[in-house]
């Protein structure tokens, strides 16, 4: 009976307040070895794959990567110029200065075993400077944000989790919306409360709008896959598929904004 009351109190405190982050932080030290152990087979397999690759495969990969690098460097030349120009124009408009960002690489080591939540565990934690609410990207777009910090690992809630909402903007015309996850679907986003008359079509790219001050502006989030105008509904039903490879990426990037970090309360 006492235990039941204690658990209910714990759950309530965990849901509503953040007193328990410290408890979790230290209790996590006990379970971290288990998580490492569970990841070990995958880790070893990757190591073995790397060691046993044939010379030809490596040469092929090398050529391909060099091609890609050349192409991207060519694009980067233009980008540098554009960025400088953009900054000048922003200054002319008296807009706030552009935030410089720094990234840290992290590896995914576990997915949440709970089929209802879309969370992943990464191998960077409070000891590496990870903080609550930190944005996480992969090579293709926004993945999610840090929701729990442990000493060596941290949990990242993916943008398709039903409890997650991302402030986005259509990159073509700047229409703002909220992209939220849904229960029961694998990896799909839904744009709620968009009026039927909104100028949005299939194939539009959604980027982070930077509103809400959690995610830096301008990262790709998703592409629109369907827009349904049902006259019986007050809003259009818009679904989008995430740009990030939520179920495949193992190499993730944690973003540190150099200015205007909001939620540094739990970093160390």
């Amino acid at each position, binding site marked *: 009976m006492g235990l039941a009351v204690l658990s209910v109190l714990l759950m309530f405190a965990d849901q509503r307040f953040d007193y328990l982050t410290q*408890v979790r932080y230290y*209790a996590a030290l006990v*379970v971290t070895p288990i*998580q490492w152990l569970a990841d070990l087979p995958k880790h070893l397999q990757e190591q073995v794959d790397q060691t046993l690759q044939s010379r030809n495969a490596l040469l092929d990969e090398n050529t391909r990567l060099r091609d890609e690098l050349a192409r991207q460097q060519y694009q980067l030349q233009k980008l540098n110029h554009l960025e400088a120009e953009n900054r000048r124009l922003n200054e002319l408009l008296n807009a706030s200065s552009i935030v410089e960002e720094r990234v840290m690489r992290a590896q995914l080591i576990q997915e949440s075993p709970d*089929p209802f939540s879309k969370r992943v565990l990464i191998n960077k934690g409070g000891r590496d400077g990870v903080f609550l609410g930190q944005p996480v990207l992969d090579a293709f777009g926004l993945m999610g944000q840090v929701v729990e910090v442990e000493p060596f690992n941290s949990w990242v809630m993916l943008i398709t989790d039903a409890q997650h909402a991302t402030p986005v903007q259509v990159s073509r015309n700047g229409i703002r919306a909220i992209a939220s996850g849904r229960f029961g679907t694998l990896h799909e986003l839904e744009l709620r409360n968009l009026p039927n008359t909104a100028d949005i079509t299939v194939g539009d790219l959604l980027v982070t709008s930077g509103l809400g001050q959690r995610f830096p502006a301008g990262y790709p989030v998703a592409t629109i896959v369907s827009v349904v105008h049902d006259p019986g509904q007050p809003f259009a039903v818009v679904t989008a598929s995430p740009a990030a490879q939520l179920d495949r990426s193992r190499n993730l990037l944690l973003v540190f904004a150099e200015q205007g970090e909001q939620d540094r309360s739990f970093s160390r």
Partner: protein
Amino acid sequence: MSALERHHAGWVIVLSFLVAALLTVLPLPDWMEPYRPEWLVLFLIYWIMALPYRIGMLSGWIIGFFEDVLEGSLLGLNALALAIVAYIAMSLYRRLRMFTPFQQSCTVMVIVGLHQLLSYWILTASNQAVAPDLLFLASAVSSAFFWPLVFVALRQSRRYFRVI
């Protein structure tokens, strides 16, 4: 005999629960995820059945607490669920010992089913899940399927290491 001598080889119990925790988080393909047996519940039921004077509700609660931290779920969810499982097992252990393996499996299925319903109920109450179907009960069936295996393995190790 002193209390220390009466309790023997506790590390076997701790190690078995670590193995169960490892099995709980071992990566599985997405479609198999709902069918993953509730290993911690199975191991808890066994140890309560074998040593009811050593493993009880408090142990269940502590194991559940660490499961919550391990899975990153709501703190206290699995703690409550496992404490209740421990309570049920405590009141049933005399009957469980008499049952045939098949009857034991059926009882285990009911207990794991209750465990699933309770955790799902709490998840829904705290707005973290809406199940489209009853697939979340599938692990009760797979747990019942794996019960005889867990039972034999744990009984062998209990006898071999003389855990009392």
